[in-house]
């Protein structure tokens, strides 16, 4: 039975499904399930956000999700189940952008695997967020450069905010 679920879901095909994530990572041998859900916020750096468009290089993103899952499995496994689903398309405030979950026998590994999963997905996946503001402006967020990245970012505890440095006038 497949222990990793890696998917990209077009928002037009419906929202991401946290209940499906819980189901997928459940197992009679597992006592702990940790899940993270990322949602579109109404405010970023003080600006009122009306929505977010996600652009992605889908085949590479899916390859990356799987590589991350396999790597986490070698360290937290062999009994781990992992779920990653990322939305693409134009999302409104409150829509789910990403759902990750980890099921393991004990809760410490569940938390650590889940945290590492979302950090690596966010820092290494070829996914780009364009925020739309109530004044009609749109900005591409520019976060982690993949130059020189070895995809070995396994710290699991790091987080940095992706800065928004490029005002994209053409996208109004």
């Amino acid at each position: 039975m497949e222990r990793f679920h890696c998917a990209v879901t077009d928002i037009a095909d419906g929202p991401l499904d946290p209940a499906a994530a819980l189901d997928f990572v459940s197992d009679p041998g597992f006592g702990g399930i940790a899940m993270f859900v990322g949602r579109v916020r109404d405010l970023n750096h003080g600006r009122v956000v009306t929505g977010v468009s996600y652009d992605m290089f889908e085949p590479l993103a899916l390859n990356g999700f799987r590589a991350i899952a396999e790597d986490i499995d070698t360290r937290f496994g062999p009994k781990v189940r992992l779920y990653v689903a990322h939305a693409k398309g134009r999302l409104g405030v409150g829509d789910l952008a990403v759902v990750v979950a980890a099921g393991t026998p004990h809760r410490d590994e569940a938390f650590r695997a889940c945290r590492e999963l979302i950090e690596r997905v966010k820092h290494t996946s070829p996914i780009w967020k364009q925020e739309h503001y109530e004044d009609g402006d749109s900005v591409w967020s520019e976060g982690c450069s993949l130059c020189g990245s070895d995809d070995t970012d396994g710290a699991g505890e790091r987080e940095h905010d992706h800065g928004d440095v490029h005002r994209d006038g053409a996208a109004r």
Partner: protein
Amino acid sequence: MKVELSLFGAFRSHDPGAKLVLEVPEGARVADLREALDRYAREHWSAYRPELLKASAFASETTVLRDAEALPEGVPMAVLPPVSGG
């Protein structure tokens, strides 16, 4: 040889089709593709920011490739600005 290059994120806004075909020398490395895109962008993109390209990586559908690596022949490529998923 010709390389098909897909544009993502902020690069998309420079080109509605989000796809270019660039010419690079036979046996080119990723660095040569980067140079070719830089030349093209300076000529064609009015709002081009060279610093964004400097922070961008190049990849095939399966892997990110470093500047020193050989450009795989006949493989579509993508230019990846700094990512911001999740």
